[in-house]
């Protein structure tokens, strides 16, 4: 039996630059590479020697889609070093800012990047002509994410207002109430999105790696916990120990470092699917019902279900944002949001948040003058690549055994890559 080679240069509809190399010989995958071909971006080195005030500004530029996540993660690392306690109101605003990037990210990924595959299109533009109502509402959802980020962070990406200790600007109570109403008005479409992605056919792949997500008792946390769980291996650890628990390692074909759990040696996926598996019980009632109706219940190990998990999170996020906005308008959180006073001191801090695409860590070592001595960033995509390669291998072998032709295998492999919602530019930082 001849060897089949699959080669995709520059995978479309993902953020960043990546190539796929697959060789199947006699039904066995002999080469399986997700090559991240980004130029070196050198952020971990560029922030060395910079003042803590500049660091979130610089790190934000790792990623144009989850810039809010990079900023909040950096702020948490810096505040840990300085011993800064922020107010409940500031915490609430940071959650809102992150949720804004969830709406932007999931809206863009689901409708602009992923949906065209399932509808047989090469881009989102035929959708605009063929199903203008769906297109309009999908854009509306993304626009709501932009509006939330703009009102809380000062602009749709690379937020201006979030600084160490608090926020430099806040909107009025009326604007929070208007946002809450906009969230309520969008819920129905988010629920319809769950149904839409449920109805798309996917190949049955069961990831053999683990799932990693932030956890907290009775919560679906995104930036308020320091605890992580490996869902499959069934153990928790503190983000403070992330460098001991997770090993980053280089491979020749990728400009990004790959990752695996040190205790088990297994690769893993960190994403909406991991969060839904880890904190299913704490999803909002609407979101949990929608997930159950779509057949998404833990344990769910099919990576294609990440699309449904993101749609479920849209429902959850809209519910949470509406509640947060109403509480902010009613002044229910203790304290204001103006930056609290603090003293600069030396130390090591680990910032950890759930970015839209999964667990994000910024480890900063700061000197007594407030300058960075050492920085390490671990993005969700870099952590996911090893697991994605393992899933790609499984998918290709399964389809080769089923006698599918090369074009179909290529399409399904690309769909799998997009289901992971990779940010390849982020993964090289």
């Amino acid at each position: 039996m001849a060897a089949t080679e699959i080669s995709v240069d520059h995978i479309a509809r993902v953020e960043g630059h990546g190539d796929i190399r697959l060789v199947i010989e006699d039904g066995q995958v002999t080469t399986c590479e997700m090559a991240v071909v980004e130029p070196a971006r050198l952020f971990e080195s560029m922030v060395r020697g910079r003042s803590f005030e500049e660091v979130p500004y610089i790190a934000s530029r790792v990623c144009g889609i989850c810039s809010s996540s990079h900023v909040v993660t950096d702020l948490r690392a810096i505040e840990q070093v300085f011993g800064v306690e922020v107010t409940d109101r500031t915490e609430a605003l940071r959650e809102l800012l992150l949720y804004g990037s969830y709406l932007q990210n999931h809206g863009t990924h689901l409708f602009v990047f992923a949906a065209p595959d399932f509808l047989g299109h090469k881009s989102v533009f035929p959708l605009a002509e063929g199903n203008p109502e769906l297109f309009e509402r999908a854009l509306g959802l993304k626009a709501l994410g932009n509006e939330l980020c703009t009102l809380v962070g000062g602009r749709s990406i690379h937020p201006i207002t979030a600084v160490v200790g608090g926020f430099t600007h806040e909107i009025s109570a009326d604007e929070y109430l208007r946002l809450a109403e906009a969230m309520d008005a969008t819920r129905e479409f988010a629920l319809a999105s769950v149904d839409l992605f449920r109805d798309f056919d996917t190949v049955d792949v069961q990831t053999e790696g683990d799932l990693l997500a932030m956890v907290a008792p009775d919560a679906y946390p995104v930036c308020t916990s320091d605890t992580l769980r490996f869902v499959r291996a069934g153990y928790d650890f503190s983000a403070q120990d992330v460098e001991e628990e997770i090993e980053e390692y280089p491979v020749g074909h990728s400009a990004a470092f790959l990752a695996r759990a040190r205790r088990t040696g297994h690769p893993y996926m960190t994403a909406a699917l991991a969060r839904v598996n880890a904190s299913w019980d704490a999803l909002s009632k609407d979101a949990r019902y929608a997930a159950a109706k779509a057949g998404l219940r833990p344990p769910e190990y099919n990576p294609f279900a990440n699309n449904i998990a993101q749609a479920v999170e849209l429902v959850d996020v809209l519910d949470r944002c509406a509640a947060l906005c109403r509480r902010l308008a009613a002044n229910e959180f203790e304290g204001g949001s103006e930056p609290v006073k603090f003293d600069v001191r030396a130390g090591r801090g680990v910032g950890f948040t759930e970015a839209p695409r999964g667990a994000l860590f910024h480890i900063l070592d700061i000197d007594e003058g407030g300058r960075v001595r050492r920085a390490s960033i671990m993005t969700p995509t870099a952590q996911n690549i090893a697991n994605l390669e393992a899933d790609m291998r499984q998918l290709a072998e399964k389809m080769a055994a089923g006698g599918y032709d090369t074009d179909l295998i290529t399409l399904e492999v690309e769909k799998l890559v997009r289901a992971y919602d990779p940010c390849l530019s982020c993964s090289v930082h």
Partner: protein
Amino acid sequence: MSENLSPTAERRAPRVVVIGLASCFGCQINITNIERHLMDVLGQIDLGYWQLTSSVPMPDEFDVAVIEGAVTTEEAAETVRRARERAGSVIAIGSCAVTGGIPGMASGDLAGHVEAVYGDAAPDACGDLLAPRPVSDVIDVDAEVRCCPIDPFEFVRVLDGVLYGSNRLPATSALCGECSRNEKGCFYKQGVMCLGLVTRAGCGAKCPALGRPCNGCAGLSPDSNVEAARYVVGKRGLEVARFNDALEMFNAVAINAAQGEE
């Protein structure tokens, strides 16, 4: 263009391609962030290639190339040279493409930065690395959309000008004049450093209006006097060294070049 002026000639929509180099992709994302207006813009052009949104490959011929990101590899330099040969007009968008931006911070000591992240050598997948530089250091650029990130409406205005002509000139003055019209006060009066003194106007001074000093993302104003600004910083009791550090964030390539000339 002249045949297009004839009322009887059949009009062909101008073909536009969008190329992403080393960047956060944020400026491309920001173009999609003008949701309600996006289809109006797209309706007037033939979007020949946009890898972020479509798996249709890049065509051989196009009228306008929109380039995001800094040139950080030999491969990227070749890409922009090819784009220049084929395109009637080239638009650089965002700080990375216009000033070298944040990637430009590594331009002074590329080898040192690579070693700090990767050890001996960067993986092959990184390509043939060059000291990061703006697109205009490699090819002639016809129009620019400044800032990090770009204002998508500014992008539409610039694209419109390239396609149909415009008598609007880019702002050259420093930001302070534009900022003072917002009547939010001056950071220097609070003893806080701000790069508006030397940064090109045109953004509306959004950051100072929201309580955050200017970080210089629009690039140096051609009318600015950096040496005089350093004097003002020192006079206000602030550290000139900090001012120089802050300038490196978005203007390292220009500052390094100026120092090279001295």
